[in-house]
């Protein structure tokens, strides 16, 4: 029975795939480049489902009107006559006033939501299970709860407790866990067929880093702010230099956090597209047989890169969480030991 089902699924997948591939082959003959690298990593106004486009709503705020214009897709926005599409796929208003805010739902946003919904579902389901007593009074049951518990204990003990002071770390475990799990999901979604890596977008990682930034500053201790504005133990004139540097340092930390995750995911994606695209480049510049022959070498290389990308996806989520914990720990630390040290030196 399962074999028949599998065969039907494979056949359906084949027919679903073959048509878009043919369509893409037609489309690529028009453009000058054999592969469109940036188009693959860019944000789109549609979801790619099995090669077909599932259009997402456009929500546009136009100058002089508080109510947004809402359309089901870019096409219906154009057919309504209020907007027209430029060759670079951006919309302009035909009513003579500019679009001030484009709140359209995009593919990256959808995958961001998928990651968050999965995280919410896992945590709520597990919290319900723990409330019932499974895992607290008895042993955790099932592979799912065991996996959850391993991840959670890892975040709590190896990331939060080692970097944030003992009496404060509990407050930050939920945030760190949510960030770790949702970034892992968002990174790994990019490996699925037709999937989009939401974290290969600087706005997504920027928002995540902004959360860390605000949590860090909100929980900053007196010592943290003293270090920023009135660095202890240095001559007064040096503070003129030190204070701007410290204030700058507050912002560079989350900036580096955002760019690190973004660049890792983007470069991984571009690397896979470029190496897989070698087949099409060879086929275009030499002849199709050459492209077919190079695929013997290129496809195993891509498989190896995929494995590497799966590892990097989890590793980058770990690094993001670890650095968030380090920054929070640094800011919320109350240097009680410091006076003792100075006395010991004196």
């Amino acid at each position: 029975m399962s074999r028949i089902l599998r065969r039907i699924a494979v056949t359906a997948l084949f027919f679903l795939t073959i048509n878009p591939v043919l369509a893409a082959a037609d489309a690529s003959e028009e453009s000058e480049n054999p592969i469109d690298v940036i188009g693959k990593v860019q944000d789109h106004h549609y979801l790619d489902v099995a090669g077909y486009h599932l259009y997402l709503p456009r929500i546009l705020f136009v100058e002089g009107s508080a109510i947004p214009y809402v359309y089901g897709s870019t096409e219906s926005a154009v057919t309504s006559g209020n907007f027209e599409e430029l060759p670079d796929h951006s919309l302009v208003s035909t009513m003579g006033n500019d679009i001030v805010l484009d709140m359209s739902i995009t593919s990256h946003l959808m995958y961001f939501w998928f990651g968050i919904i999965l995280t919410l579902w896992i945590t709520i389901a597990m919290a319900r299970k723990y409330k019932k007593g499974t895992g607290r009074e008895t042993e955790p049951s099932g592979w799912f709860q065991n996996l959850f518990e391993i991840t959670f204990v890892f975040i709590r003990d190896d990331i939060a407790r080692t970097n944030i002071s003992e009496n404060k770390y509990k407050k930050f475990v939920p945030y760190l866990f949510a960030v770790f799990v949702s970034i892992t999901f968002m990174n790994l979604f990019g490996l699925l067929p037709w999937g989009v890596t939401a974290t290969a977008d600087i706005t997504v990682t920027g928002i995540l880093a902004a959360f860390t930034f605000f949590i860090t500053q909100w929980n900053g201790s007196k010592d943290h702010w003293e270090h920023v504005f009135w660095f202890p133990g240095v001559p007064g004139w040096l503070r003129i230099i030190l204070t701007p540097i410290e204030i700058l340092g507050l912002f560079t930390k989350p900036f580096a956090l955002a760019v690190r995750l973004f660049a890792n995911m983007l470069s991984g994606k571009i690397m896979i597209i470029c190496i897989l695209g070698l087949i099409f480049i060879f086929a275009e510049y030499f002849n199709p047989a050459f492209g077919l022959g190079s695929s013997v070498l290129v496809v195993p290389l891509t498989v190896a890169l995929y494995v590497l990308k799966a590892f990097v996806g989890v590793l980058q989520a770990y690094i993001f969480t670890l650095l968030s914990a380090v920054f929070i720990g640094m800011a919320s630390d109350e240097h009680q030991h410091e006076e003792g040290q100075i006395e010991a030196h004196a």
Partner: protein
Amino acid sequence: MGLLAAGIGAGIVAIGAGFGIGMIGKAAVESIARQPEASADIRGAMILTAALIEGVALIAAIVCILLVFFA
């Protein structure tokens, strides 16, 4: 010209990042060999430092990507 700049830039980034991460790896392997019981702590510190170097290298890599595709 943008392509040339991106190529040279990517090469220099690779030299710098490779040198830095190589140094970290060397130090980490040496310290694990000296104190195998502390390998978990050393590995954590190694990943953290490598991530900090990687961040700088990737900012440069992004500049190269921007040069290739948008310059």
